[in-house]
């Protein structure tokens, strides 16, 4: 009996020592796994992005809309190469649209110099490049003149860019210089009422020249709270040949010497201020688009002696926005509230068939669930007819109305 018990205990001990060994082996394996996860990986792939869903209500229309679902896809190779891209998906007014926002390869050449090629997100002003994602933009919509549905400014284009940031004493200077395909001018042969407008993001260039652009910004304060940026852009948007080459009465009309000069000034000031227990965020941008004079044909006039017209092809837009969030308050609810207000205007050329003057005032209250998830509740009043009625579903049923008031509620997430 005794011997049997002894043998049993011995066997038990022997088995337990194995178990200990295998637990130890498992622990070691887990440690190795964790250590390898912590090691800097040489290459990495990531999908991020943003989405916004909500509701717009005007006096004669209430609609749910998915204003954005934009996956941002990033590939990093080592610590110098990055491929960044954004797909823009939109589902509004019964239409799904998919657009390549940007897709660019960048390489850090040296301190203060990065080179980028591909479909670039252009640093023209600050809104398009730095503030457009729905969880970054404090309002439900882009300011007038800075959305996708207008022809005033470049947002993205195919080309090459160099850029970087340099410390200058206590200030910082950032620069970008790029060469891209550039815009085309609408000569009126298609969409006659749009003659003189520029169209952007052209995969095929219509001429031999390229557009060039730059943005230089200064952050003069040592805490980087203020940034002032200046942008310039120059292009020749016309075809080499006259669109009326086969029409003997109009073959003298030619757009090959038309030039487009665009400028923008942008300003950003963001600062945590103890005295008001929160963060003040001021953003503003002023844009001009000047296209040199050209003669167009008026589709409504069939008399060939009077059917030509011209106009000063200058557009301007600007916006100024103020946001305040009492993030230093103790109260868990109040510290996540943000108050916002924005004023923006957009003027298209007088005398053109797409002449318009729009002003917009918006204000809102945001609630931040996390640093990149926000519920935006806002009220927006827009004066003046928009350039393209069909792009605003809530307007189309009543196009004579010159003021549109809209209540908006949107949930935006950084993914």
């Amino acid at each position, binding site marked *: 009996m005794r011997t049997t018990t002894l043998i049993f205990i011995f066997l038990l001990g022997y088995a337990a020592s194995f178990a200990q060994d295998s637990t130890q082996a498992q622990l070691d394996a887990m440690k190795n796994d964790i250590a390898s*996860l*912590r090691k*800097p*990986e040489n290459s*990495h792939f*990531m999908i991020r992005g943003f989405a916004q869903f909500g509701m717009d209500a005007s006096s004669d229309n209430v609609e749910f809309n998915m204003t954005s679902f934009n996956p941002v896809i*990033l590939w*990093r190779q080592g*610590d110098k190469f*990055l491929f*960044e891209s954004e797909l823009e998906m939109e589902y509004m007014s019964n239409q799904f649209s998919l657009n390549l926002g940007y897709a660019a390869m*960048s390489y*850090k050449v040296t*301190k*203060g110099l*990065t080179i*980028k090629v591909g479909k670039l997100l252009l640093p023209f002003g600050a809104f398009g*490049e*730095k*503030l457009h994602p729905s*969880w*970054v933009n404090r309002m439900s919509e882009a300011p007038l003149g800075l959305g996708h549905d207008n022809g005033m400014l470049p947002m993205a284009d195919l080309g090459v860019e160099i*850029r970087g*940031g*340099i*410390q*200058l*004493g*206590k*200030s*910082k*200077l*950032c620069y970008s210089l790029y060469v891209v395909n550039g815009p085309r001018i609408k000569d009126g042969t298609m969409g006659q009422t749009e003659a003189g407008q520029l169209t952007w993001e052209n995969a095929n260039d219509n001429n031999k020249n390229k557009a060039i652009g730059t943005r230089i*910004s*200064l*952050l*003069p304060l*040592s*805490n*980087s*709270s203020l*940034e*002032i940026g*200046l942008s310039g852009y120059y292009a020749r948007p016309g075809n080499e040949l006259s669109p009326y080459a086969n029409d003997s009465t109009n073959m003298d009309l030619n757009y090959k010497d038309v030039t487009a000069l665009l*400028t923008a*000034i942008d300003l*950003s000031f*963001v600062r*945590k201020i103890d005295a008001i227990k929160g*963060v003040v965020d001021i953003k503003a941008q*002023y844009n*001009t688009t000047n296209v040199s004079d050209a003669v167009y044909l008026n589709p409504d006039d069939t008399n060939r002696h009077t059917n030509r017209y011209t106009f000063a092809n200058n557009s*301007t837009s600007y916006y100024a926005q103020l946001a305040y969030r009492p993030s230093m308050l103790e109260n868990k609810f109040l510290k996540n509230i943000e108050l916002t207000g924005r004023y923006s205007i957009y003027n298209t050329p007088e005398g053109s068939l797409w002449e318009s003057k729009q002003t917009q005032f918006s204000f809102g209250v945001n609630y*931040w669930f996390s*640093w*990149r998830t926000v519920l935006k509740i806002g009220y927006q009043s827009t004066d003046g007819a928009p350039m393209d009625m069909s792009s605003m579903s809530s307007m189309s049923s009543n196009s004579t109305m010159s003021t549109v008031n809209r209540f908006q509620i949107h949930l935006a997430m*950084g993914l």
Partner: protein
Amino acid sequence: MKNKSIITSILIAILTLTVLSQSCAPSKMIAQKSGAQLWGENCIRCHNLPSPTDFNDVQWATIGLHMEDRASLTETEAEKIIDFMKSAN
């Protein structure tokens, strides 16, 4: 014409500010800034302050490259900030 004069005066103002901004070498005060301080000052300029715990080290390395461009950072700032994010996640 009005636009041009606004732009010119802002250009002049910026140039004056640059000249006024003391020596051209990064000052000691700037060089001594910690990653945490730079994070607090820079990563709040466009969106809310991102939390270091939201991403792991490998992800921060990728985001660092992405944001260095977006956020108008110098290379030194980006490196310090990302090192801080990796140490605080």
